[in-house]
């Protein structure tokens, strides 16, 4: 049974990776799960300089999901390159560095800085709903998506995954814009903008008022968008949004995802991503298929 999948020439030992922002740079989770069993670790978004993030409370639980407004707190690219990348390189897994910025220049600075570093792929977050400038502003206008993709591709030494926002009217337009800009792959979905009000305190649950909704509550939207996006473009799609079990991961692959990311599920079960990879393998064996790739886009029309 061959679990390998390939994204932009980078071979992953299995299609399961962690979702950016839910797994740090792996150091904490390494005490609870085996990073060697993951297709890739996707790191928390990193910017050219340290970002302090938003005020607290930064998260709130919702029915079958959660809102977060971390605000892309990160230690900055210098410390990340010095401390986090070497840590991850000790493991037999691919490393995907998630990049954030307020302006095109800031994104480019990080991408250039990573050129000589041992990162396998870069994921460009143009879809964070929790920062005032940059982030989602790039991800909601197809012209901006195409332009920033093109700029990033010009300086990048690694293949580029553009991470798309679900907070748009037509995901296929954004997917096509990323492809037109030269993206090697796209990933989706980032979180859906939401809000929660504490009726007893008559206040917002999050200091930021709005936050990004993730977890099983968003899965059907994510599956639909992955299906639509994967039919709109030729480049590989990485699917995510509410994956808790191998069955969920399988659904994303059948919808057209080449690989999947597991995010909020890590908070529920630190070993979730590994268990999902094992579950997929078991399932494929039982089906009698020889390549996990056979599942990609294999939903019957």
């Amino acid at each position, binding site marked *: 049974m061959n679990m390998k999948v390939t994204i932009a020439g980078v071979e992953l030992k299995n299609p399961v990776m962690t979702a950016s*922002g*839910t*797994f*740090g740079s792996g*150091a*904490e*989770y390494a*005490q*609870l799960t085996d990073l060697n069993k993951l297709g890739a670790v996707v790191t*928390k978004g990193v910017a050219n300089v*340290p*970002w*302090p*993030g938003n*005020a*607290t*409370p*930064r*998260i*709130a*639980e919702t*029915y*079958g*999901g*959660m809102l*977060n407004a*971390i605000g892309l*707190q990160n*230690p*900055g690219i210098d*410390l990340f390159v010095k401390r986090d990348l070497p840590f991850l390189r000790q493991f037999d897994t691919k490393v995907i560095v998630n990049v954030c910025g307020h302006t095109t220049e800031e994104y480019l600075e990080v991408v250039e800085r990573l050129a000589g570093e041992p990162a396998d792929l870069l994921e460009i977050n143009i879809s964070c709903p929790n920062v005032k400038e940059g982030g989602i502003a790039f991800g909601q206008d197809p012209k901006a998506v195409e332009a920033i993709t093109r700029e990033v591709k010009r300086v990048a030494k690694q293949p580029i995954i553009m991470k798309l926002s679900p907070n748009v009217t037509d995901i296929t337009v954004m997917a096509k814009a990323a492809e037109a800009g030269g993206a090697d792959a796209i990933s989706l979905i980032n979180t859906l903008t939401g809000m929660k009000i504490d009726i007893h305190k008559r206040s917002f649950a999050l200091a930021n008022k709005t936050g990004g909704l993730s*977890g*099983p509550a968003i899965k059907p939207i994510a599956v639909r968008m992955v299906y639509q996006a994967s039919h709109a473009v030729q480049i590989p799609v990485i699917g995510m949004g509410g994956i808790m079990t191998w069955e969920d991961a399988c659904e994303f692959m059948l919808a057209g995802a080449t690989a999947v990311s597991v995010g*909020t599920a*890590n*908070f*529920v*079960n*630190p*070993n979730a991503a590994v268990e999902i990879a094992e579950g997929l393998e078991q399932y494929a064996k039982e089906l009698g298929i020889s390549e996990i790739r056979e599942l990609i886009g294999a939903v019957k029309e």
Partner: protein
Amino acid sequence: MKKTNVIVTGKSYLAPGIISLWIKEEEMAKEAKPGQFLSIYCRDKSRLLPRPISICDVDPENGVLRVVFRIAGAGTEELSKAAIGDLLSVLGPLGNGYDLREGCALLIGGGIGIPPMLFLAKELSKELTKEQMTVVLGYRDQNLFLAKEFEAFAEVVIATDDGSVGIHGTVIDAVVSNEIFAEQVYACGPTPMLRGVKTFAEKAKIPAQISLEEHMACGIGACLACVCQSNEVDTHTNVKNKRICKDGPVFDSEEVILA
């Protein structure tokens, strides 16, 4: 630190809405330090995030740990229904815990910040006599819990919001009016109380360790949900904040800013 299923071995009701559970987990019971906490998961799948609850006591010989909690919402309501013999999914022990230091100790617990002080008092009592340790406990009203259990280790002073027991006022009022002598302060409770402790200790030039609370997702330092502001740039985050779940929940009062 690990995530595992633990069996409930004891349960009692301490006051209206305040529940005590003993759970069996030998490694955790051996490893646990006062001030550390457990992340307890809900059975109901609509509630994804674990609930952070302090370790209130341990009995390493019998491999058991105790938690005491208040029913504050749906998650703790569910937990309150756990019966002896039930399994709970738990991650821990988490956080840094108190640094047990030399010197006469003043322990201050407010409301649901009281439980971790019991484990701390027990550990400190290995070095300190009853005369060297004072515990000040703040409650809303006459529905006290755990107060009697501190008497084996320390002088106990009680303050209530409504004046029904002990001093009518805050824990700080109680500390000041009793002129309690202390060389080390250890505190856990709601943020307004901790602000009072911080001001009091810094004015009196007594080192104070305070245990903070924030909403948590991962509980292990990965997601950056639970930060507090710090005076200096933190070595891990590289900005002026610290992760309560990992670098705390206990901090020296002088390193953090209570917004």
